[in-house]
């Protein structure tokens, strides 16, 4: 074995271990190189959008880009662990308010950095306090969290005597704005991909499968979950900070809207949470459909969101990715699949 010094009783230092991991993970397989190339080409083509379209199409492109980033970062944590988090809005709002509150005091890039740090710290706090609770309790807690932060922010504004919202006036053309978001979403993708093929990503998959086995394999489950939760939430906070200038006027009900959290969950589930590109597959049709629905039926959006949620969970529990993979599997062996289905049905009656 090449690195026998890492075995046995003498554990390598965390740093040495990280370096070894890095060396190992820097080796890309052929498929990985191909996938990265595809990703780069798609991103490059997508980056051309502002050159060809403005107005409506570009704003649709902006929505898709931002939701792709949010849904992918949501999946980073919730996909492997099965912890459904409805706290996206809490972190998004924190990012947004960091920018709104500091826009007259500090340069915008600094504010984005502060938003990221604030989101990370808050996520660490929440993560350490709550990841021991599981299942439905975590879902409810995460939903309550956004509401709590919103109330605190409203109260804070009330005490300070400011009006209910804040103006964010940063000069950005739509194109620049679009490119910023694209860079953000690409970073989310790359980080998710990197984590997915790392030890940490593997540990998360083990945890999602059986937490008892995970701890007996030596995995510090709390640490792994909190780490992923922090990374995922930090992205949501950065997203909020990036979107703030576009909204010009930021107020608590908008910044901490539970609607956003639900949308992110639905899009991710619609696409499929077990593949890196899964959420993206959900985001594109959903965002387009959503634009259409909110233009046609502006007062029924909540109802329709609920209906969409039910339909997805009921009919495509594994998302579009599940359907696509099923289909390609069936195409490669349609008869085998049919026959086994047939037998399964027959077996059920006996």
């Amino acid at each position: 074995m090449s690195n026998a010094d890492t075995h046995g009783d003498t554990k390598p230092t965390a740093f040495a271990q990280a370096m070894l991991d890095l060396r190992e993970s820097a080796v890309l397989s052929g498929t990985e190189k191909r996938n990265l190339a595809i990703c780069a080409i798609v991103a490059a083509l997508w980056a051309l959008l502002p050159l060809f379209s403005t107005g409506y199409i570009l704003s649709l492109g902006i929505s898709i880009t931002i939701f792709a980033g949010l849904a992918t970062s949501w999946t980073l944590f919730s996909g492997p662990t099965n912890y459904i988090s409805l706290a996206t809005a809490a972190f998004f709002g924190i990012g947004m308010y960091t920018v709104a509150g500091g826009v007259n005091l500090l340069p915008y890039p600094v504010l984005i950095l502060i938003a990221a740090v604030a989101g990370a710290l808050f996520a660490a706090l929440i993560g350490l306090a709550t990841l021991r609770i599981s299942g439905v309790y975590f879902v409810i807690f995460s939903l309550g969290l956004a509401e709590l932060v919103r109330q605190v922010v409203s109260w804070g504004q009330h005490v300070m005597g400011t009006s209910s919202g804040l103006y964010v006036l940063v000069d950005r053309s739509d194109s620049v704005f679009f490119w910023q978001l694209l860079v953000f979403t690409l970073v989310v993708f790359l980080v998710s991909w990197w984590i997915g093929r790392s030890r940490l990503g593997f540990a998360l998959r083990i945890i999602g499968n059986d937490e008892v086995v995970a701890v007996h394999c030596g995995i510090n489950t709390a640490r792994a979950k909190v780490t992923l939760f922090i990374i995922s939430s930090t992205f949501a906070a950065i997203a909020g900070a990036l979107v703030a200038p576009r909204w010009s006027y930021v107020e608590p009900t908008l910044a901490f809207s539970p609607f956003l959290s639900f949308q992110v969950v639905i899009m991710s589930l619609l696409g499929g949470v077990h593949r890196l590109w899964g959420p993206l597959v959900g985001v594109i049709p959903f965002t387009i459909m959503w634009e259409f629905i909110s233009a046609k039926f502006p007062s029924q959006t909540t109802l329709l969101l609920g209906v969409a949620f039910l339909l997805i969970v009921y009919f495509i529990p594994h998302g579009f990715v599940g359907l696509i993979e099923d289909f390609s599997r069936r195409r490669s062996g349609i008869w085998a699949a049919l026959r086994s289905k047939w037998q399964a049905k027959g077996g059920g009656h006996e």
Partner: protein
Amino acid sequence: MNSPSAALTIGGVTKRFGGLVAVNNISFTLPANKVLGLIGPNGSGKTTMINLISGALKPSAGAIHLHGDSISDRSASEIATLGLSRTFQIVRMLPGLTVLENVQAGGVFGHRRMWGTELREHSRALLQKVGLQGVDDTVVSALTYIDQKRVELARALVADPKVLLLDEWLAGLNPTELKTGIALIEQLRTEGRTIMIVEHVMDAIRSLCDTCVVMNSGAKIAEGTPREVLSDAEVIRAYLGDIDA
């Protein structure tokens, strides 16, 4: 108290579940490179004992040492990294992972930490060793129960543990499989592994164990070589009484 050759020292360990005392003031020592059999009628507290050692449960009283390190107050994941591996009485697979990945799981953050090619090659070698070939990329649900048990054993071995705990690993095997199973554990034993096995299969106990500890209703009722304990009057009564009941 902890002689240098003691791999595992159990000192006055008790576990209460409410009013029930599942493990009652148990003490014994598992010497390094030896195989110890923990036997006893159903419900006598054997699995609870394993859970206490592996950190799945915390003792109500008493101390457990692994090569001199106190582990009774540590988490299961820390205990695993210190070099203790186990299998479960009812097999626990990771259903979303392939067979190979199920084995690799034991080596990412375990006692021996590996990653990448090294982990893959080592896991493959262990799958071969436990007698599973050509199923690396299969989903585990496609395996028979016995093969799943093999996967679990490979997973427990991948991190090169100092002590291995097997909870009825031979249960449910047919006579042919049993032979293979016993031979496999025998092989681990000749490699010098330190193992504690919980078994109802007396043939396995006789042929594999250096020493035996017998439990009944949470208490230790006998200790000695397999021959000694299996002829012990109280042990026979415990087992026969169990059948009568």
